[in-house]
């Protein structure tokens, strides 16, 4: 797939925005001051102003409906800069779930708010340490107009600052998303700082009143697909940045009286890494495009892209630290942040093994 002019413009402007307003140093500052909200608020405001929060919100709800390729372009720059915002939780997962499965009322209430950046949403899926949406244990029982939820959730991104929880629960045979007010009785949100200095909460639901969606099952499926595809792009961007910083280091650092980039063993490893990064990135963009085109194999492509990107980002992080040597092990130097985020992003919404397993299932083996 080739970017069209609009996409190319978006890419250029987002690249500038993230480099200016969401560089890696912001992540460090947020962490060091143990920021209350845990995300880069000025950057988020700038993204709101640029319309990026509404990138997946349909125009009739105040968004720009730019599609997943656009969201992926944003995520790629987020990955390069390790920018910390609720973009994934809100602009991708929340917007996709609501736009896909929300009732008219729900859409009218939440989508414009997402587009204008006045709310943050959090998707709560995993109820075990590993992502297994086919085997959700959280239960939804009918209660009056709505339902009551019971269960516990892990890895709920941005839940501690969320205005809306989208919770996956099992009702009879089907698994669907339900809308939950984070302040509702029975909701406990335990903010949890993760290895990548992002926030992901543990959420406990004890007889919590929740609101069904018009099609909560479709909302869940669409959110997972969009989230994985966008994460694939983010991880590919991260991998490329880690690679490029390492390449630069190979051209600067001397040992044994010569640049370490002159050592053939490192040259070959750098070449391999470049190839892997390029493939990860190409597949991520292709998968995003397949989603936008609603291609038959979009799901297969997204699973492949997420699996590939998770592996490549981790490889890039590992190789980056190793080739930087001692300095790569220090907190003072930024390269370690890439390794940390690679692990966390790789795990989110299904790790490489999970995605490969589902990939194989769809291919009938």
């Amino acid at each position, binding site marked *: 797939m080739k970017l069209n002019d609009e996409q190319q413009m978006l890419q250029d402007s987002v690249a500038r925005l993230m480099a200016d307003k969401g560089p890696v140093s912001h992540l460090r500052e947020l962490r060091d001051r143990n920021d209350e909200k845990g995300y880069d608020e000025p950057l988020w405001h700038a993204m709101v102003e640029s319309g990026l929060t509404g990138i997946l919100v349909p125009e009739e709800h105040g968004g720009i409906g730019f599609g997943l390729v656009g969201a992926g372009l944003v995520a790629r720059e987020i990955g390069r800069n390790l920018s910390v915002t609720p973009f994934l939780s809100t602009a991708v997962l929340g917007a996709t779930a609501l736009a896909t499965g929300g009732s008219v009322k729900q859409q009218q209430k939440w989508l414009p708010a997402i587009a204008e950046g006045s709310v943050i949403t959090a998707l709560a899926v995993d109820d075990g340490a590993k992502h297994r949406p086919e085997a959700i244990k959280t239960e939804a029982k009918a209660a009056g107009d709505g339902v009551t939820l019971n269960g516990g959730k892990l890895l709920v991104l941005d839940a501690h600052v969320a205005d809306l929880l989208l919770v996956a629960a099992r009702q009879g045979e089907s698994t669907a998303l339900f809308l939950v007010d984070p302040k509702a009785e029975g909701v406990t949100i335990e903010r949890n700082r993760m290895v990548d200095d992002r926030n992901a909460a543990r959420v406990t639901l004890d007889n919590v009143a929740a609101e069904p969606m018009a099609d909560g099952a479709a909302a869940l499926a669409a959110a997972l697909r969009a989230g994985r595809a966008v994460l694939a792009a983010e991880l590919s961007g991260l991998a490329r940045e880690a690679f490029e910083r390492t390449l630069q280091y190979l051209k600067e650092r001397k040992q044994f009286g010569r640049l370490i980039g002159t050592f053939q063993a490192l040259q070959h490893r750098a070449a391999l890494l470049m190839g892997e990064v390029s493939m990860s990135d190409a597949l991520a963009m292709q998968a995003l495009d397949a989603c936008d085109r609603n291609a038959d194999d979009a799901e297969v492509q997204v699973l492949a892209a997420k699996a*590939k990107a998770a592996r490549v980002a981790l490889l890039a992080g590992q190789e980056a630290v190793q080739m930087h040597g001692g300095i790569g092990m220090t907190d003072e130097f930024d390269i370690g942040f890439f390794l940390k985020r690679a692990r966390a992003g790789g795990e989110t919404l299904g790790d490489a093994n999970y995605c490969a397993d589902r990939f194989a299932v769809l291919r009938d083996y």
Partner: protein
Amino acid sequence: MSDLEQFRAETRAWLEANCPEEMRQPLKSQADHCWGGRKWQFQSDAQKVWMERMADKGWTAPQWPKEYGGGGLSPEEAEVLAEEMKRINARTPVSNFGFWMLGPALLKFGSEELKRQHLPPICRGEIRWCQGYSEPNAGSDLASLQTRAEDKGDHFLVNGQKIWTSYADKADWIFCLVRTDPNASKHNGISFALFDMESEGVSTRPIELISGESPFCETFFDDVKVGKDQIVGELNRGWDVAKYLLTHERNNIGGEPPGFLKGRALGPLAAEHVGTEHGKLADGALRADIARLEIDQMAFQALVGKIREEAEAGQGVGAQSAVLKYYGTELNKRRYEVMMDALGAEGLEWESERTMGGLYAREWLRSKGNSIEGGTSEVMLGIVSKRLLGLPDA
């Protein structure tokens, strides 16, 4: 109806009318591939008729200019032709190094005379070409080649030895790198020469591979006379032509390599041999290996697509071709390893009929050459690190 739609309709009708039924079957063996040339024995009348009809249209070389026997098609038209041929599973009518390699070189570097002399017979399938590049002591280090062409006034006299000459024993003409200036530096003083394999002093000896096939020869030149008009490009600048062709060759990678696995999915093949449990392949490790491989292949294809698009957009391919060569061949080798894991004992049989004469094992072994021929994987990584990444020499 647009011109292109019109072209598609006409093409479809023509193919339906002219492609023999037998030429719409998948290749059953290597021999079903039509290489053409003076020595070619057609496998059937249909093979001959099909080649001739396509040659008459110029469609054996669809994008070459009509004046040289080609079809004169635009890239879009050629794409339509390919799609329409694929639709009815039409076989390639004829193909050899003349089409893949010499043609593109002549079109870019050749004189008008050389084009008129050599391109039409290629298009008509009359002359089959082979490539004389490697030498026993110039493998990865191609430019250190020693085969000499001495200027004897009205002709060159060629002496030396080539190796890895594909089907030299079956080809009619050779395009060959020879040293025309022994005093120049390594990359200079090489010329790109053409001559008939029936010339006096040419002899060939097939090399048997570990797969049991002999697609390559050693080729010996003992005082072979070569016409002075048979140099492509400038004298002593043959390395430019060779480099262009090597890149061109590597570009063609990306497409799925031929052979048993072409178009075949590993999952079902494995299920036949390994069985399933609870709806999944019984061997969980093999299942994971297949999935990881297929994901890597998908990522590779995505990159191929991207690089092709960039090339079409005029950004050029250049050293990117080394990335494709490296991963294309390494993935193909991995694919055959996984296939062998899946096939178990059956994959090991070397002569049995049920394995089509040990096809699995032979193709597995043959795949090992992928990362050696046309530039080793190590050379490719060197090109990537130097030219794409700009890493310095020691």
